[in-house]
């Protein structure tokens, strides 16, 4: 990755961004639309056996929402990669895929807003969901990761490749 969004890592400089080369517990790459329900069932069961209930819940939620976003908004013209990794006392769920530049810029702006006021953004995203279906390309999934699972969200960008990573302590 050539670029880590500095805004998103600035607030957590003491612990630093999660290293991309950390030990992977699970690393899967799809070249077609994945069967999310089956895979997420596996991730949920694995996380329950590997982590505490609290961390398992967070890992399941982050895996669900990040993969759903990648399938929904990304381009599946290229591979989509899922990674569950640990580094010391931290656990990270990351999903890498390819999308359009405009979408990456929108995502970066949304994450900055979310980082500054997670609870408010969560509430406003739920409220926005009450609108017509055309307004449903929302960031409720990311807001849940940040507010509900209380995970830090990092964004790595390399051209049109984007990696969104959710990190928490284990």
């Amino acid at each position: 990755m050539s670029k880590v969004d500095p805004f998103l890592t600035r607030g957590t400089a003491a612990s630093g961004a999660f290293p991309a080369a950390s030990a992977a517990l699970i690393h899967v790459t799809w070249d077609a639309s994945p069967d999310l329900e089956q895979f997420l069932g596996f991730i949920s069961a694995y996380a329950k056996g590997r982590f505490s209930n609290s961390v398992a819940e967070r890992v399941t939620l982050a895996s669900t929402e990040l993969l759903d976003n990648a399938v929904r908004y990304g381009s599946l013209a290229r591979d989509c990669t899922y990674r569950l990794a640990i580094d010391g006392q931290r656990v990270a769920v990351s999903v890498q895929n390819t999308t359009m530049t405009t979408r990456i810029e929108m995502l970066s702006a949304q994450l900055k807003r979310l980082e500054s006021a997670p609870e408010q953004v969560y509430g406003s995203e739920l409220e926005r969901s009450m609108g017509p279906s055309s307004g449903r390309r929302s960031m409720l999934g990311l807001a849940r990761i940040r507010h509900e699972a209380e995970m830090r969200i990092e964004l790595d960008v390399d051209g049109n490749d984007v990696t969104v990573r959710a990190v928490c302590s284990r």
Partner: protein
Amino acid sequence: MSNLSQVDLPQLASLELVITPPNSIAMRGTIAIPDPGLLLGGCFRRMHEAAIADALRELSVDVRQLTFVNSSAIRLFVDWSSWVANAGGGGYLLRFRTDRRITWQRTSFAVLQSLGGKRIALDVE
């Protein structure tokens, strides 16, 4: 026979949905399929319309054993709250029974109640 008891329930391996007339619904399991609205959206709408047709004053929806949902599924509950909030004089009180130990319920239903106004009630255990 009530309209609510005649609502067809979808078959979903991870979700059990039980209607107990005259005015109770229970959901158990998880909703993690990518587009739950396709399978469940119509059912939620029919349950809402049945509650109105039955002239219910209150409908209880017990989600305490619905342990995990994705954000698309949360929108189903947002929709339902919106229908109730906008139902006018023929509407009913939608009472969600939730478990505060389940994170998604704790965070989402409090916001839903604030958005849905007096037509949404929460029983939190």
